[in-house]
């Protein structure tokens, strides 16, 4: 087996800034990182950019990585923070493209206006609440995975989800919509 096909050797070489080892890790984890990011930002093009941004941060932080730990959760944590940074700055302008929003309405009983306003109000929530609620309620990720990715406890994840729902309800009520 070539040296760089041994996972521990790849991680050790990566820690020393070896570009070949970084490429091996990039190719192994790019799909997983992209899949995690697209669940938070909900836009494929943005998720691709943020995947590159995540690995750029990983590349710069190579010396801080402990090769005895798993690379995947570390990368996911950095990806989560890259997505959060993006949502904090770009959030108010983000709108779901029309082709994503309408055709997959799963329940015809819910009015288009209520659906649209709910989605809009949700995207205006603080980024850290929005991310926790998106991953927990929409993407149905485990609270443990979300907590690890955000670097907080599962209790804090539950609290963020609760606060997101409370704020969303308050905003919909303010707009005269009774969910």
């Amino acid at each position: 087996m070539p040296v760089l096909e041994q996972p521990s050797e790849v991680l050790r070489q990566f820690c020393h800034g070896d570009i070949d080892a970084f490429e091996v890790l990039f190719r192994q984890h790019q799909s997983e990182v992209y899949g995690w990011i697209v669940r938070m930002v909900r836009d494929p093009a943005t998720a691709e950019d943020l995947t590159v941004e995540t690995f750029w941060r990983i590349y710069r932080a190579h010396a801080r990585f402990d090769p005895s730990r798993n690379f995947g959760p570390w990368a996911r944590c950095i990806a989560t923070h890259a997505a959060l940074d993006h949502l904090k700055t770009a959030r108010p302008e983000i709108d779901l493209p029309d082709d994503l929003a309408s055709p997959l309405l799963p329940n015809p009983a819910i009015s288009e206006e209520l659906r649209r306003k709910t989605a809009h109000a949700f995207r205006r929530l603080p980024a850290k609440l929005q991310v926790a609620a998106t991953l927990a309620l929409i993407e149905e990720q485990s609270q443990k995975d979300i907590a690890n990715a955000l670097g907080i406890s599962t209790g804090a994840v539950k609290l963020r989800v609760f606060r997101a729902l409370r704020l969303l309800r308050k905003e919909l009520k303010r707009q005269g919509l009774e969910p």
Partner: protein
Amino acid sequence: MNEHDQKRIEQLLQKSLPPVSVQVGADLRRDLWPAMLQRIEARPASVPWFDWALLAAVAAWCAFFPGAIPVLLYHL
């Protein structure tokens, strides 16, 4: 907000925003390594000379008038 309200708003949210895997797919459609290489090989942005001059001026000002440092920090 009681538990019933929480459930209702959860359901509304799930109906309004279906999972990404249902909408656009969560699978990566292209290899991002070329974009990554481009990012790594991009030369770091050089700092314009004017920024260095401004920094030197501020440093000199702080050295001659240390009392101005809190004022400067307040305005940052």
